[in-house]
C-alpha cells in the first residue's frame, strides 16, 4: 500500500525581485501562501511543478512544499515554509514588512 500523499503547494522565488511566491489555481503567482492552490493528488502536483518550471523567465527555484488546509486557505507545515511566508525573525523585513502585507 502506498503512503498517503501529503498535499502540496508550488512555491518559488520571483526571478527579478527574489521574493517568495506561490502558484494559484489559475496558474498565476501570488505573494501569499493562503492564495496558493492546495494540490491533493500526487500526479497533478508533478504536472503543476512542471508547469512552474516552464516559467523560467518569471520565476526561479520552483519546488513542491507540504501544506495543509486552513481557514483562509492553504497553510505551511514545516517551520522553514512558515518562515518563508513572513521573513526573518531579527527584523520586520520580507513579507511581514508593512508595505508587503
Amino acid at each position: 500500500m502506498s503512503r498517503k500523499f501529503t498535499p502540496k503547494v508550488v512555491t518559488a522565488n520571483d526571478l527579478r525581485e527574489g521574493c517568495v511566491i506561490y502558484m494559484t489555481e489559475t496558474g498565476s503567482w501570488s505573494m501569499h501562501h493562503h492564495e496558493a492552490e492546495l494540490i491533493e493528488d500526487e500526479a497533478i502536483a508533478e504536472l503543476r511543478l512542471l508547469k512552474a518550471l516552464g516559467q523560467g523567465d518569471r520565476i526561479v527555484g520552483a519546488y513542491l512544499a507540504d501544506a495543509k488546509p486552513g481557514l483562509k486557505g492553504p497553510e505551511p507545515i514545516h517551520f522553514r515554509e512558515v518562515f518563508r511566508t513572513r521573513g526573518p525573525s531579527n527584523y520586520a523585513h520580507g513579507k511581514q514588512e508593512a508595505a508587503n502585507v
Partner: protein
Amino acid sequence: MYNYSDFDEAFVRTRAAQFRAQVERRLDGSLTEDEFRPLRLMNGVYLQLHAYMLRVAIPYGTLRADQMRQLAHIAETYDKGYGHFTTRQNIQFNWPKLTDIPDIIDALADVQMHAIQTSGNTIRNVTTDAFAGAAADEVADPRPVAELIRQWSTDHAEFQFLPRKFKIAITGSAEDRAVIRAHDVGLELVKRGDEIGFKVLVGGGLGRTPMLAPVIREFLPKADLLPYLEAIVSTYNLMGRRDNKYKARIKITVFENGLDTFRAAVEEEFARIRPAFSGVDQDVLAGIEAQFAPPAFKNTPVEFYEKSLEVDPLFKTWAKQNLAAHKVENHAIVTVSIKEHGATPGDASADQMRLLADLADRYGYGELRISHEQNVVLPHVAKADLPAIHAELLRAGLATANVGLISDIIACPGMDYCALATARAIPVAQEIATHFKALGLEEEIGGIKIKISGCINACGHHHVGHIGILGLDRAGVENYQITLGGDAGPLAAIGERAGPGFAYDEVVPAIERILRAYLAIRADREETFIETFRRLGPAPFKEALYSEARDAA
C-alpha cells in the same frame, strides 16, 4: 594598503560588464536558470530563502574608509540599510534585486572591490588576522602575502573547477586569530634564524566532518610559497573526489590517502613546477609589500589616555575589553563591537558603517578591518585619541564593552536567511546575549567563545567554540546540539557533543546550567571557562546539563 593596478582595474571592470550582460540575457530568456546559476555564483550571487544574497569579498578583511562608505551607500540604495559581516571577513547583502545587482557590482568596482570567487568551487577570499600589520606579537604582516595569493588565485585557469571550494587563511602570529587549523590550507609566518618562511598546514575544515589541519611542511622558504601552493591545489584537483560532494574537500583527500602519501605527491609536483617560477612573483610581492608600509605613526604622549583610565570607569571597562596591544607602544588596536546585546551578530547599519569610516579617517589612518568574529577593527589608533573615539562610539551606541565575553557570539545567518540552514541561529545568539546581561553575569563569567551554526556546514564555527551550538531539524522541529571544549586559537580543538539536543526554548537555560556549573567549580576568578574545561573535562558540565532531566525521569 593595496591599490589596484591597471590590470586589476581592467579585469574587475570587464567582469562587471560581463555579468551585466549575463543578467540581461537571463532576464530576456536567452539563458535558463541552469545556465545562469554557475555564472551568478562566480559573482557571489546566491538565491536564499526570502531573496537573493550578494556576497562581496573584503580581501583579507582589510577596508579603506572610502570603501566602507561605499558599502554603506550600497546598503542604503539597494538593500535594507544594513550589511552582514561574515566569519570569512566578507560582507553579505541580504535583499538585493537581481535587476539591481549589476549596478551594485559597478559601485563596488568604483572603490576597487568585487564579488568574484566568493562562491563556487574555487579558491575563495584569503582570510587573515584582523590585527595584521598592527599586532605586537606578529612575526610579519601577512597581508602582502595574502594579496599575492589573491592575485595568483583570481581567475587561475587550472583552479576554476576544483572538486569543492577551497579556503586559505594566513596568520603572522603564533597566537592564531585566523583559525588557520580549520582551513583547507593554513599558513603561519615563522622565523628560522633570520629567515622568514611559512609553516604550512593542509586539510583542515569544519562542516559535517570537522578536522584540524596537520602540518605538511614545518618550514617553507618565502620564495617557494606560490609553487608549493600550486602543487597542493593541483594535487588536490587530481586526487580529490568528485563522486560525492560530502567527501570532496581536501580534508577528506588528505585523510583518505594519508598525509605522507599526499605530501609525497605534493613534493613531486612541487619539484616539477618550481623551476618555472622565475622569481617574478617575488618582484611582485616586493611591490605589494611597499604598498603595505605602515602609516607614519603619530608621536603623541599617552598621559591623557592614562588619566582617562583613572577617572572614567566606562572608558576603563571598554579599554580593558576592546583594546589589544599594538606593535607601537603609544598606539592600540581597537575592536569596535557591533554586537550590542540583542543585536544580530555581524550586522552593521549604513549609519554605523559611515561613523566607523569617519573615525578611521580622523583617528585611524583611514584603515578598517573586519574580524572573523564579526566585529570591526580600527587597527592603528594613538592612545591619546582613545578617549575621544570612545566618546563618539558611546554616542552612537557602538561602545559595547563585550569583546571576548559571552555576548560576543559568532552566529551564521541560519534559517532566518540561508537556504541551506536547518534551524535558526540569530535569535539564539540574541537571547543568550540579553539573558546573561539581564542576569548580570557577563563580567563574572569572563572570557568565553560561544559559536552558533544553523546547519551542519558550520559557517558559525560551532565545532571550535568553547561552547558550540548546532541547530538541526529533528522531525520538523528545531533542535540544538551543544558541543563543549572546542577552541579556535593555537590550542585548536574540536568540541565534543555533550549529549541529546535541546528544543529552541530550552537552549538558553541549558547554556545557563553549563555556566552556573563553571562558576561553582572554577579554581578562581582567573580561570576561564575553557581552562576549567581542560582541567576537569566534560563530566561536570554534562552533569549540569542533564542531571535535572534524569532526576525527573
